[in-house]
């Protein structure tokens, strides 16, 4: 559905040159749900805007839904749906009018546009708002209308740029419900950007981590976490028992850090298959005579993945907009 080679985009020139995207090679198959994850300014939106033909690449190629974005941008736009970060619907227009006109913009005839509009109004719980002016809608209602606008021409490939930013948990759950239904009922391919870690983890089957304009990881959330982060066991032991504890724990994992905690010491280890290993580690320590004061097991998040890849946390930049 998507195939890019060495896709680049820079802005400005000379000393002001900003390389927003520095060579992205990406393949997305039909029916996939892909989340582009990365801090703000990583190049996610720039990538998305090149794939939707809104922004011409500086170099490299991209074929989207079978069409080259540079050679036939209008044809790309015909085949895809795009839901941007801001309100798609005009504030001075009525809900139903906007939906129908969006259908006309995609070349649907009047009757088809009207019929699909009504169906989407019902599907997205907007039926009672059809005659309302967009400016009078709540944030969640506007977002649902944006989704309806993006679906009026039943695209096989849908791009969403930060779809859940600023949504409350209920609206976010709603959004994901709609996305799940689209995939179930129509097999729609979906590519979205997000900087919410939990969301990418829970909902996407494939996460592409982008940092400084490059893809630094690309896999299922489970595989990313298992391969790049692993589980973490933290043991609190008396200071005198640090050496034997380390000897036991290093048989199953690698030490991450150690720091004093009152008169005790906290030792963290990264292990694979933590839940299965923890009882054995504790048993071995008891046999060695180490008195374990506390033991915790934490399974990794995508933030741990990002941290192990870049040495930075994704959360630090998450709210700095």
């Amino acid at each position, binding site marked *: *559905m998507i195939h890019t080679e060495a896709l680049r985009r820079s802005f400005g020139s000379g000393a002001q040159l900003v390389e927003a995207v520095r060579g992205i090679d990406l393949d997305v*198959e*039909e029916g996939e749900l892909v989340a582009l994850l990365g801090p703000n300014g990583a190049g996610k939106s720039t990538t998305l805007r090149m794939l939707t033909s809104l922004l011409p690449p500086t170099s490299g190629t991209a074929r989207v839904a079978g069409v080259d974005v540079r050679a036939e941008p209008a044809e790309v736009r015909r085949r895809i749906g795009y839901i*941007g970060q801001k309100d798609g619907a*005009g*504030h001075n227009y009525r809900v139903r009018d906007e939906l129908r006109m*969006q259908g006309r*913009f995609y070349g649907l005839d009047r009757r088809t546009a009207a019929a699909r509009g009504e169906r989407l109004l019902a599907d997205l719980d907007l039926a009672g708002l059809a005659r309302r002016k967009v400016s009078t809608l709540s944030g969640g209602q506007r977002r649902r209308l*944006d989704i309806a606008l993006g679906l009026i021409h039943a695209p*096989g490939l849908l791009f969403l740029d930060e779809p859940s930013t600023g949504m409350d948990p209920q609206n976010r759950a709603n959004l994901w419900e709609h996305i799940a239904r689209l995939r179930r009922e129509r097999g729609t391919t979906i590519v979205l950007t997000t900087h919410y870690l939990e969301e990418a983890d829970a909902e996407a089957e494939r996460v592409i981590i982008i940092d400084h304009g490059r893809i630094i990881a690309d896999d299922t959330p489970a595989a990313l976490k298992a391969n790049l982060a692993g589980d973490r066991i933290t043991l609190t032991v008396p200071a005198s028992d640090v050496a034997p504890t380390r000897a036991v724990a290093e048989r199953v994992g690698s030490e991450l850090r150690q720091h004093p905690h009152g008169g005790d010491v906290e030792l963290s280890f990264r292990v694979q298959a933590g839940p299965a290993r923890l009882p054995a580690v504790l048993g071995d320590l008891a046999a060695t005579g180490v008195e374990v004061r506390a033991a915790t097991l934490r399974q990794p998040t995508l933030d741990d993945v990002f941290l192990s890849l870049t040495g930075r946390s994704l959360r630090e930049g998450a709210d700095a907009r």
Partner: protein
Amino acid sequence: MTAVSTAAPPTARPGSLLSDIAAVWTRETMTIVRDPFSLVFSLLQPLVFLALFAPLLSGVAGAGLAGGSTLQWFLPGVVVMITMFGTSMTGSNLQFEIMTGAFERILATPLSRAALMVGRALKELTPLVVQAAVIVLVAWPFGFRLYPAHIALGLVVLGVFGVGIGALSYALAIAARKSEWIFWAVQQTLLFPLLILSGMMLPLENGPAWMQLASRLNPLTYVVEAERALFAGTFADPAILYGALAAALTCAVGLGVGVRAIRGSTL
């Protein structure tokens, strides 16, 4: 890259430029259709202008007014003026939609870029037809001689010119998308010199030489002269040809600048 055909929605057909323009125009006119009261006010404005200005002009009967009634001379100017007012504001609604996000959503549709501008400019021109009809009908009993076919052609020339001005206004809105006031500053700074230097409100024949030269460089001058010739009931005046040419040129330049502005708007 598999099963690419599924990506193309079955009912969508390639839109022609005309159907794209029609679609954009239909959306824009929704604001008038849903709130027709705004149209009533826009009708009053040129009438007030005509009623307050025309009586003064008969007192300033100079070279430009010789041989024709004041109304016959002044009325085409008012029609040009309302066209300029209307179409030069095309970008102001757009600026709002750039801010809220609707512009980006529409850019992501397959609509032709030229259609985006032409459709919006035509929306501003739509009330003009009604306005022109009302002005002409009101002026009729006061000695204005009516030539419907000529006026119709005059409105077509004005429409082409208006699309050009609308496209330039559109481009200006995109250029000034990061600071709203610049749009109004530039629009106002350009609009009034253009209007005055076209001889639209007052005849320039008695003005200083530099003003007359400036008016010759102003495309609007030729459009105003063409409208005057047409409203006077002739098709034979070469001024009509020059006016049509100036309108076509303005339209071409406007659309060229506008399409470039749209391409650059996502940077």
